[in-house]
C-alpha cells in the first residue's frame, strides 16, 4: 500500500507529466511524447497494444508477410533486429514518413492485418519520432520492476461517471514513467465499467476490475459502481442492525455498504444446521439431530456444532478427498508401474486423512509432499523390510493404506513416470505451482505468458528445482540391492531359507540432474522459485524451495490456501478460479484475502482454526434468501449462495434420506460413506454411474477446471428416472417407519426432516396430507412423497 500511495502522490504532483524521475531531486517537465522515444519503453509496448505480435499475426512461428516478431514481444532484441532489418525497408531514417512500420499499420499501403492506428495517433507519432531520432535500441532500458494503476481502486457514482487512470511503470533503473498511452485496457465486466480507450465509464451497478496491460504486464484497478436504487435507503437501517462476528464481516460489509447491497439476515437454526453439516462433513443432519439442535437453548450451540463437525472423522475424509483432487492422485503417469491404481489411491487418501484428522499444520504437510523420497533417509535394507511388510498386506487394502499413512512423506506425488522411469519434471513443476501457489505457468512453457509476468526462463528455472527428482534405484540403493542378492544366493547355496526381495522402485534425488537451458542464453539456468532469488544447486533443491514456499514472508502460499478454503465454504473464491492467481485476475476483496492469510500464518498454518474463523463469521452464517438488493450478487457474499452438492455428498444424501445403501466399493472391507471413498473408479456400477453423472472430479489434472459441480441435464434426468431410486425409497427405512404406525403429521414431518432437513410449512403439509389421504396404499403414497422431495432443487443443493 505504501508504495502505491507514494506513487499516487507522485502522479498527482506531476499531473500531466509523463516522465517522472525518482532519482533526480527535481524532475524535468517534458512535453509528450517523452524526452526520448525509447524502443523498449514505447515502441515495443505499442506492438503489443495493437496486437501486432500475437500468434495469428506477426507473432506466429513463421511471421506474417515476411515480418516476424517474437510472440507477445518476449524477445525485444530479436524484434528490434526484425524491424531494422536492412532488407525490410520497414525503417527509413531519411524519410521517416515512408517507413513501412508506419505506413502498414496506418493502412497507407497494403496490410493483411488491416488498419491498426492512424499516422497522427499517439502510436503513429511515437513511432515516427522514434525513427526520426535514429531508431535506436538501448537493450535493457525497458526492464520492468512493476506496473501499477493509479489509483488502483475507484468508485464511480452518478456524481462521478468516469475516470482516466494512469498506469505507472517502474523500471529496473528506478525511474517511473506514465505509460498509460502504451497500454491496452480491458474491462472484466462491461455491464459495470465500459471503456473508451483509457477512459473508464460507469455502465451499471456492481463491481469489477479494469486491467491495463503494458507490454504484456498487467495492472488491475478495482471499479466499484454503487447501486443507486431507492432500495438502499431502507438498507441504511439494515446496515445499522448488522452485527459483525469477526474481522471477515467487517471487510465484507464495508464493501457492501459502498456498493449499496444489503446483506441477507442470519440463517435460522435449521438452515444453518443443514448447511454446516453438508459443508463440513458432506452429510445431511439426521432428523433426531435436527430436533435436538433446535430444542437446545444454549447460546453457543452454533459454535459448538461447528467444533464438533470440524473434528468429525468424515471432515478429515472430505479434506483428504479434496487434497487428492488438488494433488492429482489419479494421474499415474503414462507408463504404468508396479503400483496399481487402487492401492495408490487408497494410500494417498489415507495419508491425507490422517493428517487432517490430526490437524497437522498445513506448511508441514506441504513440506512432506514436496520433499518426499521413498527411503526417507533410511538404509536400503530397512526399507526393503518395510516394503516386504507392505507386500504381505497387499490383500487388505485398508491395512495397506494405513501402513502407508504412517510414512512421513507422500512419495506417491512424484511417482508419475511418463516413458519407462522418466518423470516429466516440467509437468511436476506446473503441478506444484498450481496446487500450492495457485499460479498457472503452463503458458510460459512455450512463450512468455501473454498476460502475466512469467517468462519461459521463469518456467525453466522453476523446473530446475525438480530436475533432481528421479524414479528407479539410486546408485546407493543399487549397490545395496546387489549385496542383498548376493547374500541371498549365498544363503540359497548353503540351503538356508531365503525370502524374496520385493521389487523396489524409489523416488530419489539424483546428483546429476539434467538442468534446463535458458530460452535464449544456452546456459543452464539456476533453480529458482517463481519471482524469487535462485536457490543453491547442491543438496535436495526441493528443501530450499519448500523453505521459500512456506516462509511466513511469502504471501503466495498462504493466500492460495485460504482462498481455496474460502471457495470451499462459499462456492466462490476471493480469487476465482482458485488456481489463477495473477495480476490480471485481482481478488474481489484484497484486504480480506490478506487478513485471512495473515491470520493463517500467525496461527502456525492451523487449518481447523481458519475454518472455524470462516464458519463462525456472520457472512457465512447469513441466509441464502435474498434481500431486495442482493439477489443478483455473485461476488460480494451478500447472501449464502446456492451450491450444487458434490457427487459424493449427493450420494450420501440419497443413502441417508432413503436409508438404503449403494453398496460396497471394490476391495473395501466395509461400506463407506461416499465422501470417504478414496478411489476414482469404485467398481460398483451404481456408484460409478452416479459419480460420473454428477461429475466427481477425475483427480488427474491439477487444474481447478476439474471441479465442475454445475448442474447438468444428465443429472436431473438420472434423479428423475433411476429405477433404483424408487426401489431404494420403497424398500429402505420407510418400511420400518411405517411399521411404527405414525400419524400422517408425524410421517410428513419425518419425511421432510430426512430429505430437506426442515419442517414443512402449512401449505406443504396440507398437500402432503392430501396425498396420504387419497390412497389406501400408505407405503406407495409415502414413497411418492419422499421421491418428490428428493427431486427438488432444495434437496440437491447446499444453500
Amino acid at each position: 500500500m505504501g508504495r502505491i500511495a507514494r506513487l499516487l502522490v507522485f502522479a498527482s504532483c506531476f499531473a500531466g507529466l509523463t516522465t517522472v524521475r525518482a532519482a533526480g531531486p527535481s524532475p524535468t517537465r517534458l512535453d509528450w511524447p517523452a524526452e526520448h522515444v525509447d524502443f523498449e519503453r514505447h515502441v515495443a509496448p505499442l506492438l503489443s497494444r495493437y496486437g501486432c505480435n500475437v500468434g495469428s499475426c506477426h507473432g506466429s512461428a513463421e511471421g506474417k508477410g515476411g515480418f516476424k516478431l517474437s510472440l507477445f514481444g518476449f524477445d525485444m532484441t530479436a524484434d528490434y533486429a526484425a524491424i531494422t532489418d536492412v532488407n525490410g525497408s520497414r525503417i527509413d531514417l531519411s524519410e521517416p514518413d515512408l517507413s513501412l512500420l508506419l505506413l502498414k499499420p496506418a493502412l497507407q499501403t497494403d496490410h493483411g492485418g488491416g488498419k491498426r492506428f492512424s499516422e497522427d495517433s499517439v502510436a503513429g507519432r511515437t513511432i515516427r519520432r522514434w525513427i526520426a531520432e535514429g531508431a535506436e535500441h538501448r537493450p535493457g532500458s525497458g526492464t520492468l520492476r512493476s506496473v501499477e494503476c493509479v489509483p488502483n481502486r475507484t468508485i464511480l457514482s452518478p456524481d462521478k461517471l468516469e475516470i482516466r487512470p494512469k498506469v505507472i511503470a517502474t523500471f529496473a533503473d528506478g525511474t517511473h514513467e506514465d505509460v498509460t498511452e502504451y497500454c491496452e485496457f480491458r474491462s472484466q465486466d462491461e455491464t459495470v465499467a465500459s471503456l473508451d480507450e483509457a477512459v473508464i465509464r460507469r455502465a451499471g451497478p456492481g463491481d469489477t476490475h479494469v486491467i491495463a496491460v503494458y507490454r504484456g504486464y498487467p495492472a488491475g484497478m478495482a471499479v466499484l459502481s454503487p447501486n443507486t436504487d431507492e432500495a438502499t435507503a431502507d438498507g441504511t437501517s439494515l446496515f445499522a442492525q448488522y452485527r459483525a462476528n469477526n474481522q471477515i464481516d467487517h471487510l465484507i460489509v464495508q464493501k457492501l455498504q459502498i456498493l449499496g447491497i444489503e446483506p441477507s439476515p442470519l440463517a435460522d437454526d435449521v438452515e444453518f444446521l443443514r448447511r454446516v453439516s453438508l459443508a463440513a462433513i458432506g452429510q445431511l443432519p439426521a432428523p433426531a439431530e435436527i430436533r435436538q439442535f433446535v430444542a437446545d437453548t444454549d447460546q453457543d450451540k452454533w459454535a459448538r456444532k461447528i467444533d464438533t463437525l470440524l473434528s468429525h472423522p468424515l471432515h478429515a475424509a472430505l479434506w483428504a478427498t479434496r487434497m487428492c483432487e488438488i494433488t492429482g492422485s489419479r494421474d499415474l503417469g503414462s507408463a504404468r508401474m508396479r503400483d496399481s491404481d487402487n492401492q495408490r489411491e487408497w494410500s494417498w487418501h489415507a495419508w491425507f486423512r490422517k493428517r487432517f484428522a490430526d490437524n497437522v499444520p498445513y506448511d508441514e504437510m506441504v513440506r512432506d509432499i514436496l520433499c518426499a523420497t521413498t527411503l526417507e533417509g533410511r538404509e536400503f535394507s530397512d526399507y526393503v523390510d518395510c516394503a516386504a511388510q507392505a507386500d504381505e498386506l497387499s490383500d487388505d487394502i485398508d491395512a495397506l493404506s494405513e501402513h502407508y499413512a504412517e510414512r512421513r512423506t507422500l512419495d506417491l506425488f512424484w511417482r508419475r513416470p511418463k516413458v519407462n522411469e522418466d518423470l516429466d519434471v516440467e509437468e511436476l513443476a506446473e503441478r506444484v505451482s498450481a496446487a500450492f501457489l495457485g499460479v498457472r505457468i503452463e503458458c510460459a512453457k512455450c512463450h512468455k505468458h501473454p498476460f502475466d509476468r512469467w517468462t519461459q526462463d521463469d518456467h525453466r528455472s522453476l523446473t530446475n528445482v525438480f530436475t533432481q527428482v528421479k524414479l528407479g534405484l539410486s546408485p546407493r540403493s543399487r549397490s545395496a540391492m546387489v549385496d542383498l542378492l548376493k547374500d541371498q544366493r549365498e544363503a540359497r547355496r548353503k540351503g538356508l531359507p531365503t525370502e524374496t526381495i520385493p521389487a523396489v522402485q524409489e523416488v530419489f534425488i539424483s546428483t546429476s540432474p539434467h538442468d534446463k537451458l535458458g530460452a535464449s542464453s544456452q546456459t543452464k539456468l539456476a533453480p529458482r522459485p517463481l519471482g524469487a532469488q535462485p536457490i543453491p544447486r547442491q543438496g535436495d533443491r526441493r528443501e530450499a524451495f519448500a523453505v521459500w514456499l512456506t516462509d511466513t514472508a511469502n504471501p503466495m502460499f498462504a493466500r492460495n490456501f485460504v482462498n481455496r478454503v474460502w471457495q470451499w465454504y462459499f462456492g466462490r473464491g476471493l480469487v476465482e478460479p482458485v488456481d489463477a492467481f495473477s495480476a490480471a485476475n485481482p481478488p474481489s476483496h484484497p484486504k480480506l484475502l490478506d487478513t485471512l492469510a495473515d491470520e493463517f500464518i500467525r496461527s502456525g498454518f492451523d487449518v481447523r482454526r481458519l475454518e472455524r474463523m470462516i464458519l463462525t463469521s456472520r457472512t457465512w452464517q447469513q441466509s441464502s434468501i435474498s434481500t431486495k438488493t442482493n439477489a443478483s450478487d455473485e461476488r460480494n457474499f451478500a447472501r449464502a449462495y446456492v451450491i450444487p452438492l458434490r457427487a459424493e455428498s449427493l450420494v450420501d444424501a440419497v443413502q441417508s434420506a432413503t436409508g438404503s445403501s449403494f453398496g460396497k466399493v471394490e476391495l473395501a472391507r466395509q461400506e463407506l460413506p461416499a465422501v470417504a471413498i478414496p478411489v476414482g473408479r469404485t467398481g460398483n456400477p451404481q456408484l460409478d454411474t452416479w459419480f460420473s453423472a454428477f461429475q466427481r472430479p477425475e483427480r488427474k489434472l491439477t487444474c481447478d477446471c476439474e471441479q465442475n459441480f454445475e448442474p447438468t441435464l444428465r443429472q436431473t434426468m438420472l434423479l428423475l428416472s433411476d429405477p433404483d431410486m424408487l426401489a431404494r425409497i420403497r424398500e429402505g427405512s420407510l418400511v420400518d417407519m411405517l411399521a411404527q404406525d405414525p400419524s400422517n403429521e408425524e410421517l410428513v414431518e419425518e419425511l421432510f426432516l430426512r430429505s430437506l432437513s426442515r419442517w414443512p410449512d402449512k401449505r406443504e403439509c396440507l398437500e402432503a396430507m392430501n396425498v396420504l389421504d387419497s390412497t389406501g396404499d400408505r407405503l406407495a403414497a409415502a414413497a411418492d412423497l419422499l421421491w418428490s422431495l428428493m427431486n427438488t432443487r432444495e434437496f440437491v443443493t447446499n444453500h
Partner: protein
Amino acid sequence: MQRKQSTYTRRNFLQVGSMLGLSLPMLLRAKATAAPTVMNNVPARNMILVWLGGGPATIDMWDPKPDAPDAIRGEFAPTSTSVSGLQICEHLPEMAQVTHKCTLIRSLQHSIPAHGPGSQYVMTGHVPSAALEYPSLGSVTARMLEPVGGVPPYVTFGNPPSSGAGYLGSAWSAFELDATMREIPRGVSLGADADMAAFDKRVKLRNVFDRRFDTRNADRIARGLDAFQQQAVDVLRRDSVRRALDIESASDEEKKSYGASNLGMNSLRARRLVESGVRYVTVGMEGWDTHVNNFNTLRNTLLPRLDKALAALIVDLDCRGMLDETIVCCCGEFGRTPQINGTAGRDHWSSAMSLLVAGGGFKAGFVHGATDKFGNAVIEGAMSPADLAATFLWRLGIDPAAITRTPSGRTMPIIRDGIVVSELFA
C-alpha cells in the same frame, strides 16, 4: 418434421445478444466490429463429428503419397474412388465409393503436436489458454441454435477430449454417453413400459414442494436447475434418448451396414439422435496414436471399422434426405509424421493433415488444398482449426464473430481468428 429456416437478420442477432447477456450498447459495438453477416444459403441444422482420438495418420488415409520413398509412402497403395482422379487409401474401399458425396480437406495445419492442447484447438477453434477454457463447437451449437425440445441438444459418445462447454457454463455441456455401452444406460429413460401417469403425478407433487425454493431463484444455480427440470421431464416423457439409442429396433441390414464395432453402433445411434432432433453429436473413437505398428493397426482394425461406419453413415443420411442438413466431419487432433519411425509407426505431426467432410451444403466430390510431395507441409489452401471452426459454425447458421461473455465478464467472439472458407460450399 417442421424445419425452421433462419436467415441471419438483425433481429436474430439481437436475440443472440440478449441471450448471452450483452447489454445493448455492447451489442451495437460488437455489431459494428463484426463482419457483415448475411446468410445466403439454407444453413445446415445438425452436425456429426467422428473424432479419431490420438491423431490419425491421414497420409495413410486421405492423402496418399505413392511416389514418395518407402520411408514415407508406407505400406499401403492408393485406390481410385468415385471421383475421377482422386485417390485414397486401399483400405478404405467403401469410402472410395462415396467420395463423390464428400469434400476432402488436405490442408489443415496448426502448430500444437500434443494431444491435449491439439485436441482443444481443433475441438474449440481456439489456441488453448490456461486462463480460459473455450467451449467446444458442440456446446456453441447447443447454445446458439434454437433448441428442438424434448432432446438434449448436444450428445457425445466416449468422452472425447475438450468436448465441454468451457466458459459457456455447464448448461451447455454434452450429454455424455459411454462409447462401449451394450445396453441403454441408467438415467436416460423411464423404461419402455413406464407408468407415465404415475410419473406425471410424482412430478406434479415435486413441483409443489419445489416452489418454496423460488425465494432463491435469482441464484444462477437455482435457475439453471429449474430449466433442466423442465427439459428433463420433456426428454423423459418423449423417451427420445432411449428410442434413439435402442438400436435393437433397427433392421439387421442397417446394423450390418454400420459394422458391429462400437464406432459403427455409435454412428448409427448418432444418426438416430440427429433424426430425433439432437443438434450436435460427437462420436469418439480411440486408438489412433500409432507411434508403433501403424500399418498393421490401421489395416487390421482401425481403417476397416472406420470405413464401414463412416460410409454407412453418409449413405444412410443421404438415403433419408438428411445429408444436406447434416454436416459429417471426420478428423482428429493432428496428423502423423510422413517419415516412418523405427518402430513402424508415425509420430505426431500437426503441420499438415487431412480430414473428410460430407453433407451440410459442403461441395460434393471436391478436394480442397494440397500438401507437398512428401506430405510434410501444406502448399495450397491452408486452413487453421480456427478457420475450420468458423466454417462449420457459419454453415450451421451461427455467426462465428458473434460476441459471447465469459463468467468473469470478458467479452469474447465465438471464434477469434477464423476465416469462413466459402470455397468449400456447394
